């Protein structure tokens, strides 16, 4: 199936804390994207990971693609209130015509 499961569903932390959110699937996928969506806006792409075991860093955000290409994680170091938002993972469908999204992790970083 194309199902992507994200955890946790909600996360509320204090500024300066570290956190990790997860995206898991029962099937292998060729690539995976992470998006961030702020309230009242559409999702915006953060990163695409393609190779099993790949690690990409975007400032304080570290993205990892599992060796088996069935899971991914996003780690945020020293979270800031500006990191607040909904984090979504997404993958292409097998026929490359569709994108499927997880239900997201809603992050709230309190000052």
């Amino acid at each position, binding site marked *: 199936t194309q199902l992507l499961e*994200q955890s946790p*569903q909600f996360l509320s932390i204090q500024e300066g804390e570290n956190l990790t959110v997860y995206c898991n699937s029962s099937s292998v996928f060729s*690539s995976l*994207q992470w998006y961030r969506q702020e309230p*009242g*806006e*559409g*999702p*915006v*792409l953060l990163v*695409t990971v393609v190779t099993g075991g790949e690690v990409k860093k975007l400032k304080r955000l570290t993205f990892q693609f599992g060796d088996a290409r069935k899971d991914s994680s996003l780690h945020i170091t020293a979270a800031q209130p500006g990191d607040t938002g909904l984090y*979504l993972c*997404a993958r*292409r469908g097998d026929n*490359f*015509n*569709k*994108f*499927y*999204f*997880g*239900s*997201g992790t809603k992050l709230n970083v309190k000052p």
Partner: protein
Amino acid sequence: NAGVTQTPKFRVLKTGQSMTLLCAQDMNHEYMYWYRQDPGMGLRLIHYSVGEGTTAKGEVPDGYNVSRLKKQNFLLGLESAAPSQTSVYFCASSRGPSGNTIYFGEGSWLTVV
């Protein structure tokens, strides 16, 4: 840069009314999508198009119709709105099979009473 533009941004409909959501993109993208987003359900694909004049069903197409008469526009229609269609609707576009990035509009908030 406009990117993906959706209109209207907010709308309240009565049950049984019809309406059309308009989406325009200025990036010359081949692929366009309509998603709906509901709490705890994530983004679910309603319909999509892989080029001008083509449309296809997504995960939740019932109650919706679409048209792609021009490459830059993708219209989503509700023929007879139902309260279950209360949602936030997002239009998106991407370059094509080789493009991994989807660009989203800002969303259209639809309430059906």
